[in-house]
């Protein structure tokens, strides 16, 4: 491709400026967190003596250990079950193609663009009636349902591209549908499954609305939900708030940096498919 020198430099400068705009808020958050607790520093200034202890304090005050545990429980409740049932459904709709499958699939698609705000009130009463309000189940169960449109869509898109010949071969060798699924198709679907797992993990970890509406005790919520309560409590103590926010976004940051490539491609594909 022919690209003139001037154009290329313009692009580079723009890219660097945009990267700065993206990163500077993080940097500002970090240096502010190092200031003396209770002071009101300016946006980007290195403190005279960095107070590293702020992080320790924020960890203790926010009860971060417990929050990590709570988030982990919710993740364990949501992700494996969502993966299992959506993969089964995606396999059936994309590969076995039962009669009426098309209509079922369109039914799932309809939920794809639903903002959670639209159904939060009925969910609240529904959870209250089952008696699960203010327990972690109130986050876990609705999330599984709410992920179904995307997860089924994602897995169906994967299975529809699997050649039927594989299944024919397996059936001739005497495999029934169950064996076909577990022995042949699940191992072949690992890339699609891991991308889905990453997306579901991230969305659950960052889920805020369901957490603060359906669970009033911050200690039973996800990390993001607890951050809301933390802000309510420490909103006036800027360095403390910054330290707390940093601690809460660190886990996703670490996981992102480890699985970077897969993350980016999963999210890009995810939105392209969705």
């Amino acid at each position, binding site marked *: 491709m*022919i690209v003139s020198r001037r154009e290329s430099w313009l692009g580079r400068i723009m890219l660097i400026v945009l990267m700065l705009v993206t990163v500077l808020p993080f940097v500002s958050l970090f240096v502010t967190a190092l200031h003396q607790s209770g002071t009101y520093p300016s946006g980007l200034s290195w403190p005279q003596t960095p107070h590293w202890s702020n992080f320790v304090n924020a960890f203790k005050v926010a009860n971060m250990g417990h929050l990590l545990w709570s988030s982990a429980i919710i993740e364990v409740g949501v992700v494996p079950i969502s993966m299992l049932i959506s993969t089964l459904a995606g396999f059936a709709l994309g590969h076995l193609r039962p009669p009426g499958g098309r209509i079922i699939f369109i039914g799932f698609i309809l939920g794809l663009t639903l903002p959670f705000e639209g159904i939060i009130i009925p969910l609240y009463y529904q959870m209250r009636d089952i008696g699960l309000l203010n327990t972690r189940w109130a986050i876990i169960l609705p999330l599984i349902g709410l992920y179904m449109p995307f997860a089924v869509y994602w897995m169906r898109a994967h299975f529809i591209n699997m*050649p039927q010949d594989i299944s024919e071969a397996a059936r001739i060798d005497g495999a029934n549908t169950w064996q076909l699924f577990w022995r042949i198709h699940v191992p072949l679907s690992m890339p699609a499954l891991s991308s889905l797992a990453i997306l579901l993990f991230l969305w659950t970890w960052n889920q*805020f609305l369901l957490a603060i509406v359906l669970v009033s005790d911050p200690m039973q919520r996800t990390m993001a939900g607890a951050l809301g309560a933390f802000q309510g409590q420490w909103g006036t103590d800027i360095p403390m708030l910054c330290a707390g926010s940093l601690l809460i976004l660190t886990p*996703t940051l670490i996981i*992102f940096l480890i699985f970077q490539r897969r993350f980016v491609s999963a999210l890009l594909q995810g939105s392209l498919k969705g």
Partner: protein
Amino acid sequence: MGQRSTMTEGRREATSVPRFTTQSRRRSLRARRLRRGALALILVAPAGLAYLIFVIRPIAMTVQYSFYKWDGVTASTWVGLSNYLAIFHTPELSGSIVNAFELIIFFSLFPVALGLFTANAIRGFATSRLAVVARTVLFLPQIIPLVAAGIMWSWQLSTNGLVNQVLQLVGLGGVTRAWLGDFDTALPAVGVIGAWVLFGLCMLLLLAGMTKIDPALYEAARVDGAGPLREFFSITLPSLRQEITVCLTVTVIAALASFDIVYIATQGGPGNRTLVPGLEIYYACRGTHAARPGRRRPSSVDEP
């Protein structure tokens, strides 16, 4: 690819055209297909059930509630469309919907326009080291909780924050203010947070789309004497129709679901300047803002 499709066709002929089979054989084939179909439906059932209980039923309830006057505890009464009419007569409610639409401009148009511009500027070196680093960095806002983005930015936009610091540095000290507390700037300031969160995703989606465009098209255009502007409008933009649609869909949904950011950054204030439907629904739920769930329901239904 070609080989695969001929193979599947061959197989289909072998199984679905039972030309030489007897009557009974045909019947057993059909029975097997029915059995497999039933099995497939059973496999869909768990996902379908979760979806029905936690998405379809609530949607139906939302629609149903919207025709009733109900305080959430005592018996409800049918009021027809009056809740929907109330949206237009109650400035607080209609205002929140107008705000949501204003946010769409910031959440959707800005990231997509800026993303198009940037992606176009860097497509020439999309595989260079700088661009690979940028891919990771620009993605950061997507993976942190929106709540964290809200906290982060309410600090940057405050009186002492980074934004004002930068403005002073470039000699614009006169316009500094508490951006989220000012009646005129609160909503755009919230919009800027959303644009910051969504820009990276849009840019990368569009860039990915641009790398799929055949370079020969550009070379042919250059040979014909087209400038960069002409190239952009005649080749790049038309080829990206799908990606742009996706970006707009994703960002409009994000704008309608802007609850997280608004809740953290402004709680709807100052006044009702940044009130959005999501926030009203939350207040209705928690009963902190005069609990009138029956009255508020339509605002949620209106969201597509």
